[in-house]
């Protein structure tokens, strides 16, 4: 709930029984019912047996681990790149800033198929290919490729949230820190980052859930891993137990394509549950941030 109601102009919808208020709320209720029915009606296509059979699949737990590890790695990479970038976009003017903002924003709305294909071509482009050859690594169709494919959207979502987090901190605190003799770096790490802590966490949760949800770019850049020859997986991935597995979104698509509706639907419900937890946490965090801000 946002602060406007806290100001008390519209205490409840029942407090002001006007046609307009009821009509406006009817839209929200209608959409709520539509979305709720969208998710509930999915249960027709699955049963507890679907979940049970899913958990018996040899790839299932490896897939869960793979999804978790890749999404965590993606979030970490996105934070390393995105937090300083968001801070720079929030605080400094530099040439080409507007163009940079457009680039970051357009990552948000690029179709995943386009992202996957463009990454594929760029990674196979001669100079990049030679670099990979000399390092003896291969990104396309390999597990690190999953992280690369997820990074694009996760970074885009993260940077937007992190920028908002830094925009909300008035630079006067940093000025005080600087006049007390701290270096710019020290001000950033000891002052700005802790103050923006909640916003940074929000961005990280957004990036994580977006990385977990990524499907198209991963499918195009890495294809599927489940039926691949075990010899093609590195010792590291075998040690972590993430070989011959697909991230959950790709696994769900494969189950649907193979006609295993029950298992596909069960996977969809698992992803729904995980995302619902993230969305709920984000809403709660925003509410608390607002109350701390207003002191209410």
């Amino acid at each position, binding site marked *: 709930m946002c602060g*406007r109601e806290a100001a008390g102009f519209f205490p409840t919808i029942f407090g002001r029984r006007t046609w307009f208020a009821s009509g406006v709320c009817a839209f929200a209720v209608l959409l709520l019912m539509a979305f709720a029915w969208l998710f509930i*009606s999915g249960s027709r296509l699955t049963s507890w047996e679907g979940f049970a059979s899913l958990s018996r699949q040899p790839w299932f737990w490896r897939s869960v681990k793979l999804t978790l590890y890749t999404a965590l790695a993606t979030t970490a990479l996105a934070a390393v790149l995105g937090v300083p970038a968001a801070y720079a976009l929030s605080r400094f003017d530099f040439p080409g800033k507007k163009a940079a903002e457009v680039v970051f924003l357009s990552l948000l709305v690029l179709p995943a*198929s386009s992202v996957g294909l463009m990454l594929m071509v760029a990674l196979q482009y001669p100079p990049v290919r030679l670099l990979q050859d000399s390092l003896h690594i291969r990104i396309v169709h390999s597990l690190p490729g999953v992280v690369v494919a997820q990074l694009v959207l996760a970074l885009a979502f993260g940077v937007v949230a992190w920028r908002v987090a830094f925009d909300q901190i008035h630079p006067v605190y940093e000025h005080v820190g600087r006049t007390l003799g701290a270096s710019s770096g020290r001000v950033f790490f000891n002052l700005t980052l802790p103050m923006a802590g909640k916003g940074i966490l929000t961005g990280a949760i957004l990036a994580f859930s977006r990385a977990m949800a990524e499907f198209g770019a991963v499918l195009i850049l890495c294809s599927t891993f489940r039926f691949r020859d075990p010899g093609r997986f590195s010792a590291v991935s075998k040690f972590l137990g993430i070989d011959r597995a697909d991230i959950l979104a790709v696994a769900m698509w494969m189950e649907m394509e193979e006609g295993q509706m029950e298992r596909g639907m069960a996977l969809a419900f698992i992803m729904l549950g995980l995302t619902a937890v993230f969305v709920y946490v984000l809403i709660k965090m925003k509410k608390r941030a607002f109350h701390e801000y207003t002191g209410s």
Partner: protein
Amino acid sequence: MSGPWSSRVLKSHSWHALLAGTVACVVAVALFITLANTLYLGWHDFYFYMTKMRTWLSFTNTLWTSLLSAFLSLLLAVPAGYALSRHRFPFADAVQTILFLPVLISPCAVGVFLLACCRAIPVQPLTEALGLRLDHALPGVILAQCTVICSFGILLSKTAFDGVAGKFEHVSHSLGAGEAGTFFRVVLPMAKNGLFASFVLMWARAAAEWESLMIFVGAIQGRTDVLPLAVYLDFTSGRLGFALSMSLLCLLLAMTGMVAVRLLGGRHHVWS
């Protein structure tokens, strides 16, 4: 020195360079990827595939379906966003969780849920009565796009309305205006830029939607292949030239939309 956020106190050169460097790094990688794709395709081939009818069929399909779904979703999402911003709902957190779920859930899962929903009670008889076909047809494309961007639109318009302080409505009420009058003459004009920016973001998001289409609508060439889906179809069937020129077209669409958002200057937060 310009702008309230930049100041001489903060300006330490190495630190400044390091931070701006990360931005430059990301932008440079994005530019390199675009450049590599353009060079790989070549100007001659790009021109060749641009003159093909198929490319333009996909392009026009994408354009009108995404514009229509963005418009429909805006009509639904703006009142809903206003309601969420101003009124206290019972179980508000749960309500918001459900309404905002399609923003963050995998679009692929949305497709799976739509597939199940369209065989369920209110949708199945309704589409039969109307003689509307959802699978393998463009109405299904519009439904899938609407599902995702409606939720996105509620979030964006709620943010836009949150940015309009409640005191203006209070003043308007105390001057004797009704609630509808206040909404249309005070709140909407104040939230105008934010709502325009939301519309463009929703449109761009709708034009990028394809995962749910692949599962829910099914990919039929020449019928349901909006640009992002056509990129995937052509990629898997080995027509790399078509796929690449269409993905560059998608990039152009996304960039155009985001330049518009930047010019409108609304608060283009995904989550705030």
